[in-house]
């Protein structure tokens, strides 16, 4: 594996139907690293992936894969000559091909014979435990099954970079869990780099080595999951990465971000309990205190009624910068 970044985009600008969708994005993904692109819909996640894949041509900036410039230097390299695979949000399975032939497609394009390509495809499908679906067409598969076939097709490409375009957006919660587990296991096997677009904070934080936060076609923050969760650069980043309360700092120095686990009930600060939600493993309490409203998460079932006067203690806070915060 080369020392060059697996993916490197620099000052990327993409215009689409007259509107500027990406406005100067620079990112690096090292070999073997998983980068999550986290942003609300319309923030440019898909556009960034499509530009890296070669479905869109940037109007400025460069895309490099493994040290090789594929866009931004004359005519962009077409997708089939870039060393990457894509898992699509809507699966993008070909309705006229069986699951087996779909997974065999990349090998066929590499020049393998039909029998050889099918053998390889079946081996991959066996590893993903979907070999029993080999003869089915997409119309005969559930969403989760379709997406695993899509994943198998991407694996069959044997690329250095995987691009995931919100692959779990259309999946039910439990199917999503199964798919993500499979995804992580396969990625460990291959050691390839991956860029994973999602609008789900939990998914991004749990999956990635680093998280890039995107808003209106610009990067807001890039860092490890801990960094973006514990030390978001502004309120937007804070809200994007998880539940967040904003209160006045007790010392009057500005505003403070408090995650639900950063304060606990019981203590010196007086407050009124405005709402209580039992969530199973834990309960959320919304308290109103002179410093502002904040959410406090405690293990187990709720111990207070709405309207009760409670005390609470601030364990940790993160000062938010900017007028936005």
């Amino acid at each position, binding site marked *: 594996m080369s020392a060059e970044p697996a993916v490197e985009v620099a000052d990327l600008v993409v215009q689409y139907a007259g509107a500027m969708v990406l406005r100067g994005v620079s990112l690096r993904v090292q070999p073997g690293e998983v980068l999550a692109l986290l942003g609300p819909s319309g923030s440019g996640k898909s556009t960034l992936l499509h530009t890296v894949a070669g479905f869109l041509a940037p109007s400025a900036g460069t895309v490099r894969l493994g040290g090789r410039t594929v866009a931004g230097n004359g005519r962009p390299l077409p997708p089939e000559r870039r060393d990457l*695979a894509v898992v699509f949000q809507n699966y993008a399975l*070909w309705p006229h091909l069986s699951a087996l032939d779909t997974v065999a497609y990349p090998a066929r394009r590499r020049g393998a014979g039909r029998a050889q390509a099918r053998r390889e495809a079946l081996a991959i499908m066996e590893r993903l435990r979907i070999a029993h679906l080999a003869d089915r067409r997409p119309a005969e598969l559930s969403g989760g099954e379709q997406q695993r076939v899509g994943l198998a097709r991407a694996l069959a490409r044997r690329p250095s970079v995987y691009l995931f375009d919100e692959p779990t957006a259309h999946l039910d919660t439990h199917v999503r869990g199964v798919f993500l587990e499979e995804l992580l296991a396969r990625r460990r096997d291959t050691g390839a780099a991956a860029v994973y677009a999602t609008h789900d904070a939990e998914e991004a934080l749990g999956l990635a080595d680093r998280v890039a936060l995107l808003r209106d076609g610009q990067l807001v923050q890039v860092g490890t999951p801990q960094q973006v969760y514990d030390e978001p650069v502004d309120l937007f980043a804070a809200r994007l990465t998880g539940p967040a309360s904003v209160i006045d700092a007790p010392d009057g120095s500005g505003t403070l971000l408090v995650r639900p686990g950063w304060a606990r009930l019981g203590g010196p600060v007086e407050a009124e309990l405005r709402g209580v939600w039992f969530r199973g493993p834990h309960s959320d309490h919304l308290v109103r205190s002179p410093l502002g409203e904040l959410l406090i998460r405690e293990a187990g079932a709720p111990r207070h009624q709405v309207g009760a006067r409670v005390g609470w203690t601030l364990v940790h806070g993160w000062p938010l910068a900017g007028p936005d915060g």
Partner: protein
Amino acid sequence: MPPGGTPTPARTSATVAVLAVLAVLVALPLLRLAQVVWQDGDGDVLRVIGSDGLGTAARNTVVLASGVTLAAVPIGVAMALVLRRPDLPGRAFWRAAVLLPVVVPDFVLGYSWTQAYARAGFTDTLLGLSWAGLLGPLGVWLVLVVNAAPLVYLVVAVGLAARAEPDLERAARVSGAGSVTVLRTITLRLSLPAVSAAAVLVFVLTLGTFAIPQVLGAPAGFSTVTTRIYADLSIGGDPGSFLEAVTLALLLVLVAVACVAPTDAFLGPRLRASRPADAQGTPSSPERRAVRRAEAAGLAGYLFLTVALPLAALLLSSVTGALGVPPTPGNWTVDHFRQVLTPRTVEALGRSVGLAGIAATLLVGLGGLVAVVESRRAGRATASLITLTLVLPGSTLAVALLMTYGRWLSGTLTLILLAYLAKLWAFAHRPIAGALDRLPPDELRAARVSGAGALTAVRTVALRPLAPALLGAWLICFLTALHEVTMSSLLYGPGSETLAVVVLNSEELGRKGPTAALSVVLALLVVGPALVLWCVLDRLRTRRAGPPTVRAGGIAHVG
């Protein structure tokens, strides 16, 4: 499709009404046709079928239809592939321009080719170049191909929009397939049902086509089944030629049904099962601009030679004083227009417009009726029957209606109206049914649970989105009825000529300038509504695609 599969009394009576109209317009006349051949034919039928001229005409027809299909399908598919590219320079213009050969009445197209390329035509006068083969089988074939290619394009473009989503092609590209391989293994495979359907449609429509073979083939002695029926019926009074016409009409419908019924049964579900058409295709990946420019240039050249030049030549000969005079401004005159715009012509024009308007209005009603009935399982069969009327050759229908109702209605506009209703029903039904299909059932359900009755729900929720489809269907019927000449040329009588018939008769009398002038009038008459239709369809398209959903920073507003 509207919710509810339970048969209500209203639905049942609608089904009965549809079947009754179908029986009166189509089934009864066809049965009468068969009966006449059976009774009056005796042993003569075999002799008629065995006769030389008829055999030639039948063979010509089948060979012509096959040849036109073979050539028109690749051209139409190529058009659909090229015009799908959003980065094609001038795409909106080209998408309208390629439809010109179907918008212009087919005999106007055929006649315009003679004005452009035949002896004493435009290229002959200007460059000394003329094509003797234009009047004959080759010319008929070529102009029919030009006429049929846009139909293939339309069918395949819809199929591509519905099935070949950009992501499916992107997935192939990123799996290592080059653009040609993607075309071969994905795009064309996905559009195969649409291409097959288009091929069958072109084949059957060419079997029944009349105007172009009549204008270009008949003068050279090249006869097809339809031109022979016309010739047989023009003779009049001769029982032998009448029997031949009736036999040919029956033969034509049998061939058409034999081609369409199996393909409709086989392809119908495949075409319907496809996903609803979503937004127009985005590029699956950027391609070289030079390629796009070359494609646009090719398209421009094709349209110039096949449509623009002939129509320009037609316009020139309509304003040029005399035969053989160069078409320069010095020789321009409006004499031909003054000459042809007699009270008789103006009356015919009024009749054409009135007839087309009435037919279109009734057809939209009938089409809507079928679309509503269709949501029941039994209604599906009715809808298939109505689709079959689309490929019912006009000549057959005209002869059959003439024999069934001719006793009372011979030579009247009512008979022509009946023929239009029978022939164009499917034209009205398809767009309305399509729009109903696209209407999300939850929208009607939401209206119902919000307190609207069944009719109120349709009026308040469904009618607005359906309005463009209804208008589109009306305009399609109006336009087609306006151009129609196959049936009206067989059914007209004194005082019921339509404008199209007047043009055809003038052409047969060999009056070059006046015919050109009349053709120009008819073409202009058609282009106006066609432009309106284009705008309506464009609106339909953008509505379906929906507004761009950019909800940037949506989360920032929460809390």
